[in-house]
């Protein structure tokens, strides 16, 4: 029913926390029968294919009902087209009995282009404002309620006490309204994926450090670099080729160059990179290739993608997942040897006999696009998920700068009433330039101290944001740095957090922007 879906969107829109969003979604799946919950799920995962209802169609509709100037003034105030129309639409009095999502979807899918505006208007006439909002968001796509496809699938897993990895494995064989998925979630049979080239759940690692490694025998382990790209799974199955992200999203369309090189029958696990010969480009360059539905010849040439293979799951009809890693690696080496090396190559192994040797390698990686080390037990089977004791990641030490707090904003939930979201800056000449935001890293005691500082040192307010006297220095740790035209400083940090409060340091001794820019990975001219 559109009413229940409208309530769900409302709750999600105002719930900042992931855990609560999951609870709302699971509650919705519990309370809503098939096929509506399946259509709602498809709307959230972006898998609902509807005839394009464009903003201009909606503008045309509302122009027939509301004075243009009154609409313009209202839109200006509200700021969202669907919301403005939902609120301003003069219903004809009376709201229909709740309409099933499945009926609305079927109608939108079946309507001819010419009859579409009339159908939508008739629906809007008989809906409440919140139903109109939900209906318009459904019709135009793009719900913008802060729920990723993965979070929606996680909610199905929570609801049915299923394993997310298993859902992701079969997801590409499923279609809205997912009757077989919900049957499984409510105690029925697991759907058999009939799709070609399905995704297999990925094996993940747990973090480690020198201290933890000291207890282990180096002879039991194999080490390789942890490359800074995105983890992918390349599946080629009876002529069907797909490239999946590690969460099972199909990203094939953005990487035709990789697909072309997948002249095999099997499943490889590896890192997707932008690679020019032996030169691996920084992560930022890979980002320009991501998220595309199509990719032009120019970009394929300027940003060629490469797959650096880590592991082999299936090969020419054999499932290798239960074999020990050492054996899989040998099979992988043979498999990759027969492929186009310009596109698919091997992640090299690192020679070591003791942990100190490995520590030395980690301290001085040969390329900046290395995030650290992967240490894998020789006997590990390929297991779904993050199982302790098999694969370890030993990440490079984070980068650090000493920055000055500039702005603060209040947090949500358990941090209600605390200034817990901080913007910090570095010196550029005599000015402090904002370079990033951090929401975590501090202890509860440090949070209290920072909150107190913000309250006592506010110099200006911009709505919920406070500008503070630029006096507090914090050590910011982060995992990487990309160029970013969207940021004033020209760079964006990855996973920045406040590692320490530097009360020992005056603001004048905080780092300079130039120091940060020097940490950028080198880019090939």
């Amino acid at each position, binding site marked *: 029913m559109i009413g229940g879906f409208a309530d769900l969107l409302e709750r999600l*829109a*105002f719930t900042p926390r992931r855990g609560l969003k999951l609870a709302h979604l699971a509650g919705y799946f519990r309370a809503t029968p098939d096929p509506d919950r399946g259509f709602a799920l498809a709307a959230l995962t972006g898998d609902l294919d509807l005839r394009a209802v464009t903003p201009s169609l909606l503008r045309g509709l509302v122009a027939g009902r509301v004075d243009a100037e009154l609409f313009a003034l209202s839109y200006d105030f509200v700021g969202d087209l669907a919301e403005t129309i939902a609120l301003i639409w003069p219903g004809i009095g009376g709201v229909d009995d709740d309409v099933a999502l499945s009926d609305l979807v079927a109608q939108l899918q079946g309507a001819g282009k010419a009859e579409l505006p009339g159908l939508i208007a008739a629906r809007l006439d008989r809906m409440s404002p919140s139903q109109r909002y939900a209906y318009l968001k459904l019709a135009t796509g793009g719900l913008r309620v802060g729920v990723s496809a993965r979070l929606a699938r996680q909610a199905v897993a929570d609801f049915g006490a299923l394993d997310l990895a298993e859902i992701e494995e079969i997801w590409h064989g499923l279609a809205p309204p997912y009757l077989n998925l919900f049957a499984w979630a409510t105690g029925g049979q697991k759907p058999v994926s009939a799709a070609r080239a399905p995704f297999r759940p990925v094996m993940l690692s747990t973090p480690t450090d020198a201290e933890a490694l000291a207890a282990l025998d180096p002879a039991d382990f194999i080490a390789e670099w942890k490359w800074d790209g995105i983890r992918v799974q390349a599946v080629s199955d009876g002529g069907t080729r797909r490239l999946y992200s590690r969460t099972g999203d199909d990203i094939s369309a953005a990487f035709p160059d990789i697909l072309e090189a997948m002249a095999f029958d099997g499943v490889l696990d590896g890192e997707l990179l932008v690679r020019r010969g032996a030169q691996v480009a920084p992560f930022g360059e890979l980002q320009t290739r991501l998220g595309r539905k199509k990719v032009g010849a120019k970009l394929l040439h300027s940003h060629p993608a490469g797959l650096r293979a880590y592991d082999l799951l299936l090969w020419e009809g054999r499932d290798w997942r239960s074999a020990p890693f050492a054996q899989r690696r040998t099979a992988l080496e043979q498999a990759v040897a027969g492929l186009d090396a310009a596109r698919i190559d091997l992640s090299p192994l690192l020679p070591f006999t003791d942990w100190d040797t490995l520590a030395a390698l980690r301290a001085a990686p040969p390329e900046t696009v290395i995030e650290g080390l992967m240490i894998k037990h020789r006997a590990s089977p390929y297991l779904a998920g993050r199982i302790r004791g098999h694969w370890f990641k030993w990440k490079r030490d984070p980068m650090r700068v000493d920055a000055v707090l500039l702005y603060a904003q*209040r947090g949500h939930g358990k941090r209600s009433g605390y200034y817990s979201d901080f913007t910090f800056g570095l010196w550029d000449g005599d000015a402090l330039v904002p370079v990033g935001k951090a929401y975590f890293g501090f202890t509860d005691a440090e949070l209290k101290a920072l909150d107190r500082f913000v309250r006592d040192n506010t110099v200006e307010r911009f709505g919920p944001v406070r500008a503070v006297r630029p006096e507090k220095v914090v050590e910011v740790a982060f995992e990487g740095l990309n160029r970013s035209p969207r940021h004033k400083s020209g760079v964006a940090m990855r996973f920045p957090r406040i590692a320490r409060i530097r009360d020992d340091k005056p603001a004048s001794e905080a780092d300079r922007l130039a120091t940060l820019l020097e940490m950028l990975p080198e880019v090939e001219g």
Partner: protein
Amino acid sequence: MLTPLPTLIPRPEGLYCPQGNFFIDPVRPVPRALVTHAHADHARAGHGAVMATRQTLEIMALHYGPDFAGAQQVADGQVTIGGLDVSFHPAGHVLGSAQICIAGPSGRVVVTGDYTRSPNPACAPWEPVACDILVTEATFALPVFRHPDPQAEIARLLASVAAFPERAHLVGAYALGKAQRVIMLLREAGYDAPIYIHGALAKLCDYHIAQGVPLGDLRPATVARGRKGDFAGAVVLAPPSAFAATWAQRFPDPVIAFASGWMMVRARARQRGVELPLVISDHVDWGQLTQTISELDPAETWITHGREDALLRWCALEGRAARPLRLVGYEDEPE
């Protein structure tokens, strides 16, 4: 030309009537003020003389102390000022709120102050007062503002309280009017548990109770022994400004709610970090405002403050004479 109607002129101090030599809701100290209601942006301290309803004067005294003006006069029945007949009529906005009617020999002007036509059990309901010139507020004068049934909004609050019994529900509500309205709506909905209130609400809640407005079991939202769990499942009312203060840190994982007509617009709610927006307004919405103009059918409509552009456009479409006064100093909703 004879002066057909009492004259009102917008001045920096507020709306001025030269025949009566008084200001209505002046934002700066003036010799003589007529005050529609006790919200701080309409009712300031320091005037030479203030005329208002008894309850408005008493609430001003609670805010500012008993000597907030040189002289006070309770508006009771019809009073003649400078040859004009002045009378106060209920506005339905907050306790003591009034519209001011100024009648001359050949016509009448009604200044609405802030008003609502939605039932508000905390005060006397708005009354239609026939007039030649209607001087109206326009706080929510956009056709997107169609405020829902407040009881349905309270039902959403109670549903959330039931769904999250381990969390405190902090409801932002302005101290005069909105807070008592929310409390009464909760009581009407059958919620008879203690309601906890921020210290800034205490005086005005006590005053309402003394005026015969039943609010039920109210308790101070103080942590006696610093135990956060004390407020699990509780409904706590506070002025919205308290959410920015350390005061909010005492509650267990609070749900932040806010009772305001602005909560209709999602972006407004999100900007304030509101998790549970409650659309409860003590102003006329678009429908009530345009209905009021249609029903009173004044020769002219003057607009004091708010979103006058849309209302002017509506009047033009309806063939009604209207003009904006663009008075400054009134907040959208005072804290």
